[in-house]
């Protein structure tokens, strides 16, 4: 694996390898000294053009547990926001000897441009680009679902037959896009629930079912319900009338949670708007995987960095 830019072009077998390696990494996390020497001497740069403390520290923890050197480059408020181009920044990082660049960017496709520009030789990991993809989030979601379903015997499994419902602002969600491709590649059946304003156009080619009615989706008894963050400011662009109506129609409140089957997992990529798309009761219930998702994020990102930098999946993806 040279880069991790999207889940769209990730085959089932490749995804399972990543998830299996993440299981190994999770075991390391349980040790007294949760550290491996695997990436000693390698330099990982976190290049963040958007604020995202959660994702950045998750990647930082992952790289450090593999003994890599970590450079955090917050492009916001730096030379970059003063007009330095992606190209110049890439060349700077190349000159510093970066082996991998973890990039978060507000523009869709920016990691692809870095990977294809020929300005830097490092492996590129997409840590969220615009409204395009967020592949490590989808991988950690898949990892979390697989662990809940199969426990310690998760290795080698896909998510065959698992029914996942993703609810909310699909249009603006890179998490939703990455999950649609990855979860379906792993054999899950994905449905999307949102008001039509927040559904991307022309989804007939996506391997998903579409619906507007959250109560109907809950009545169908999904194995997983994944709530997406909704930005209240979207109402100013007429995506929905106001937060109250959104919450009433598409929020996971206590009543709707009670209507879910006992086995249903409740997921959220964070950060949450408690009381808007998810109630405190739902977020804090034992069915919620939200804290596991955070812990699993480190294991999955360790796996990705390891596979990228150790050459273990050379020639793939």
């Amino acid at each position, binding site marked *: 694996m040279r880069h991790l830019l999207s889940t*769209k072009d990730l085959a089932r077998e490749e995804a399972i390898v990543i998830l299996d390696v993440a299981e190994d990494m999770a075991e390391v996390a349980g040790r007294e000294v949760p550290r491996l020497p695997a990436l000693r001497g390698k330099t990982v740069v976190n290049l963040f053009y958007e604020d995202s403390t959660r994702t950045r520290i998750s990647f930082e923890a992952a790289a450090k547990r593999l003994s890599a050197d970590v450079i955090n480059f917050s492009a916001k408020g730096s030379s970059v926001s003063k007009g330095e*181009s*992606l*190209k110049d920044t890439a060349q700077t990082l190349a000159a510093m000897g970066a082996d991998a660049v973890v990039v978060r*960017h507000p*523009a*869709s*496709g*920016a990691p*692809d*441009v870095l990977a*294809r*520009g020929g300005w830097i030789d490092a492996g590129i990991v997409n840590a969220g*680009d*615009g*409204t*395009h*993809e967020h592949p490590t989030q989808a991988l950690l979601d898949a990892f979390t679902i697989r662990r809940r379903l199969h426990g310690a015997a998760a290795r080698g499994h896909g998510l065959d037959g698992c029914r996942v419902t993703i609810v909310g602002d699909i249009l603006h969600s*890179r998490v939703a*896009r990455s999950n649609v491709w990855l979860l379906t590649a792993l054999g899950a059946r994905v449905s999307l629930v949102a008001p039509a304003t927040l559904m*991307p*156009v*022309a*989804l*007939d*080619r*996506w391997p998903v079912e579409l619906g507007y009615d959250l109560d109907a989706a809950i009545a169908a008894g999904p194995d997983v319900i994944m709530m997406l963050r909704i930005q209240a400011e979207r109402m100013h662009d007429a995506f929905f009338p106001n937060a109250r109506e959104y919450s009433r129609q598409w929020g996971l409140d206590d009543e709707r949670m009670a209507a879910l089957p006992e086995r249903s997992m409740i997921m959220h990529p964070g950060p949450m708007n408690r009381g808007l798309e998810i109630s405190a009761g739902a977020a804090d219930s034992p069915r919620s995987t939200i804290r596991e998702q955070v812990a699993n994020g480190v294991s999955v990102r360790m796996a990705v960095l390891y596979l990228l930098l150790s050459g273990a999946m050379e020639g793939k993806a």
Partner: protein
Amino acid sequence: MTKRILIRGAALADGTTTDILVADGLVAELGAGLSDAGASVVDAAGLIALPGLVDLHTHLREPGYEHSETVLTGSRAAAIGGFTAVHAMANTSPVADTAGVVEQVQALGDAAGYVTVRPVGAVTIGLGGTQLAEIGAMAQSRARVRVFSDDGKCVSDALLMRRALEYVKTFDGVVAQHAQEPRLTDGAQMNEGALSSELGLTGWPAVAEEAIIARDVLLAEHVGARLHVCHVSTAGSVDVVRWAKARGIPVTAEVTPHHLLLTEDLALTWDARFKVNPPLRSRDDVDALRAGLADGTIDVIATDHAPHPVEEKESAWSDASFGMVGLESALSVVQASLIDTGVLGWVDIARLLSSAPAAIGRVAGYDRGIAVGAAAEFTLVDPSASREFSTEELRGRSVNSPYLGMTLPGRVMMTVHSGYPTVVDGEVVATEFVAAAAAESRGFTRG
């Protein structure tokens, strides 16, 4: 320099073979076996002679954006593309919204001498969309502006558009509308459809173009004014224009070469050379545009040549500028998409790229094509040539061509403007020679 040029054995667009004798800026004689006395002779066997191409939609960037293009460099790009006249769009800095700016642009064009530069005047002051520019002053200036456009921006205010259509009619001009409903395209990055949904790029829906064209043809009908629609890009737009023409509304429409050949899936490369406004559309749209040319719904092909420096394209897609250079590649792309596919013949191309745009822009001397006594404005094309298009083929200042690395048919071997050559043996004639010939030609015309 009353230099005579004898073109030996060229094929005209209709397939007949002829010699062409150029003298004193005019086509002096046509026919076989013309005398070469005192003339420099060009062997045109296997070449097609087309009337000089007229671009209704060019961005020359001067004044203000000389790092992208100048009137001179853009004129050289035009000449190597077979053009002898271009309309320079108004979105310069300062905007071409006064007589002073349009006269300056025209003077720069005259001095360069490669093509006739016809400045386009802005419809509204500063392209701001709120107050009419001094259209009368521009029309009556030395530049005699006849095409008015806020291109790059849509005249979206319905009342202002109505008034512009009426007021421009007063001066025998035409409003060339950049049809783009601004609210429907806020932040738009590519054609709205399945692919924009997948890539997470904000969509530019077809309806944003079609709704403005529908409104404007009805306004044009209501006030009895001419309307020209820039760079039509969707199947629905072709339908609306077809309906308007059937109704007798005086509307003309243009399409760009890139919308006739390229499709939206090039966005999958994330290469911003393929980012253009209006965006590349679907295969169905491309087919509808070709059909619109074939049935006469679309009147002209215009390049929308839009130069940008490298740094404005070497970035993430949504941070990059819209636009592609197109003068140098236009005829090859037209050949690839229309001739080699059997959609149209060279006679049609001569109309779409020469007489029709000249008529819309009120450019004199193009109504008869290559004819005895007409101004010597023509280009010789080798249709059997095939070349891998590269930056080597470009003669403007910018290299943001979407065709780099593609193999394209056809090649311009010679261009003659005002009776003197601007391209010889497939290469642009040196700047000082052309400038001198142009000066002499102006003196000759005056004398």
